[in-house]
């Protein structure tokens, strides 16, 4: 087990290296010259050239990549071209809202979607099942920002139950923090809920037709115990896998959701950085997201052993 964990962590190194190369070269190839942006409209070509040299943009690609990687390994993500603040500082300032949003969405999605999928599988073919499936299709096909604006309009503007936008730090108290995050979490979670509910339903349907479910019935187990103990534990591995893969959805969705609800998180930071061609910030944020994704999926592989004793590392 420990050997496996070490092996898996070592295996993330090449993955992260490829991600790093990709992130670095994508922005190198992308059109637009940050030196020109910083220099402004009035600058002469000489000014732009000088700025470019000071940023190190005139040196060969591989040299710059090598230097960049070495600095990252030392915990230095560089300095923002725009604000002159270290990227690590900027990320640290913005990480709390994003993590709050993602964790809350994750909890909400799991708590809502799994019972939904289980119910749909149990009541297969009834209107409950059809309702869940219709919701799932809707959740997939309506974009996050549409759901977001709709929720904000109904629950914030019309009913005035919740704030329209903004973020309050967790240190200011649980309720103010939660209040601001409910609508964004629902908006961001709709796709995620749809995804998890669908996979839960499909997996449960397969598990419920197995012989050991018949055995459980023959023992006199209640419907609840059959669904949530005998069946769900067997269905857990595919469901947990999808939850892990879905983290990518959350990361992408967080960027949009933070814009809709004016949450000062990493998503907003990314959008702003892209608009300003603030290379070091973009690189830092994308690397961080990739790293989180790789770590979460490693954790999920380890969680499998809790659900299925046949999986051993």
């Amino acid at each position, binding site marked *: 087990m420990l050997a496996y964990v070490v092996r898996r962590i070592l295996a993330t190194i090449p993955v992260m290296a490829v991600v790093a190369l990709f992130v670095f070269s994508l922005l190198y190839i992308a059109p637009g010259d940050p030196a020109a942006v910083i220099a402004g409209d009035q600058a002469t070509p000489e000014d732009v050239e000088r700025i470019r040299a000071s940023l190190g943009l005139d040196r060969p690609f591989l040299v710059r990549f090598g230097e960049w990687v070495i600095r990252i390994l030392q915990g230095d993500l560089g300095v923002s071209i725009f604000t002159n603040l270290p990227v690590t500082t900027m990320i640290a300032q913005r990480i709390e809202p994003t993590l709050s949003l993602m964790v809350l969405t994750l909890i909400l999605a799991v708590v809502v979607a799994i019972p939904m999928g289980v119910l749909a599988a149990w009541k297969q073919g009834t209107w409950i099942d059809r309702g869940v499936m219709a919701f799932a299709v809707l959740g997939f096909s309506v974009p996050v920002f549409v759901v977001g604006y709709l929720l904000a309009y109904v629950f914030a503007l019309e009913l005035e139950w919740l704030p329209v936008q903004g973020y309050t730090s967790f240190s200011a108290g649980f309720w103010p923090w939660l209040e601001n995050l409910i609508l964004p979490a629902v908006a961001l979670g709709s796709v995620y809920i749809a995804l998890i509910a669908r996979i839960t339903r499909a997996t449960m349907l397969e598990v419920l037709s*197995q*012989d*050991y479910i*018949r*055995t*459980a*019935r*023959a*023992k*006199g*187990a*209640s419907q609840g115990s059959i669904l949530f*103990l*005998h069946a769900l*534990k*067997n269905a857990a591995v595919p469901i947990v896998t999808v939850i892990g893969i879905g983290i990518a959805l959350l990361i992408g969705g967080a960027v949009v959701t933070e814009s809709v609800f004016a949450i000062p998180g990493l998503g907003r930071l990314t959008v702003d950085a892209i608009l300003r061609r603030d290379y070091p910030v973009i690189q830092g944020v994308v690397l961080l997201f990739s790293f989180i994704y790789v770590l979460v999926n490693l954790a999920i592989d380890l969680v499998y052993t809790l*659900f*299925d*004793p*046949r999986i051993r590392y």
Partner: protein
Amino acid sequence: MALLEIENLQTHFRTPDGVNRAVDGVSFNVEAGETLAVVGESGCGKSVTAMSILRLIPEPPGRIAGAIRFQGRNLLELSDREMRDIRGNEISMIFQEPMTSLNPVLTVGRQIGETLRLHQGLNRQQAEARAVEMLQLVGIPEPQRRVREYPHQLSGGMRQRVMIAIALACNPKLLIADEPTTALDVTIQAQILDLMRDLKRRVGAAIVLITHDLGVVAEVAERVVVMYAGRKVEEAQVGPLFRTPRHPYTQGLLGSVPKLGSSLTGTETRLAEIPGLVPSLKQKIPGCVFASRCPHATDLCREVAPALEEKAPGHVAACHYAAREGAMAA
């Protein structure tokens, strides 16, 4: 009053292309402590009969009609809650596939303990202690260790022993065994049959043994019900049934059993077979269900369904031509 009285049991399934009459008017009794075998080919309705007793048939598409009286109570009229109190407690069941009938993600101890906690209100520790005793009872070595293991760590024979332990944990009055040895090696089959016989004697449970293996029937059963195409065609004590089978189907079944060593003694004969297949259960058959495959069938058989009649004391068969006493008249 018999322990279990099944009266005109009809289990039908609604399918897109018609109603499948898997069990169509079967009646038989099981006395306390007796072993009754229900035999027949695949698809004759044996397993559906067994599943109907515990109401494990999904409804819909299935529908169970008739009466199943257990200790005088009609199980078909009980609520789901009352039915759950009977399942695994007063009536329990073991299945054909030991490899897939145990839950792969729960420990053996937990699965045995579950029935005890459900029906006898034991707590976790008590249930586990009792599970160890049950494993010992069914002859599993090192029960202390095995109780914490998962099904994939056990062999097929051991898993079937665990199934038996689960089934007998609450001392049921009736054990339904659906092809309990079919999926096992021959040597393991004998061990499992011995175990069932031994435990039956200790617990005093009646057994309904569903099987297509006549060797098993001869070995353990006291009385036999022969089913064909969803109906009962013959019923008798095991001795008379093997000595003088009355129904042509039963005769066919017995004729198709290979005899060990027949080629050595020079009496080698071609194995008898019953030509054809079990008819589709989706059409109503006006005459005898076996007429299409019966070597003795006449127009009377194809038109009029024969009633079950007592051909000899305690020996009933549904055949126009089966003689009342002695051999076939046809």
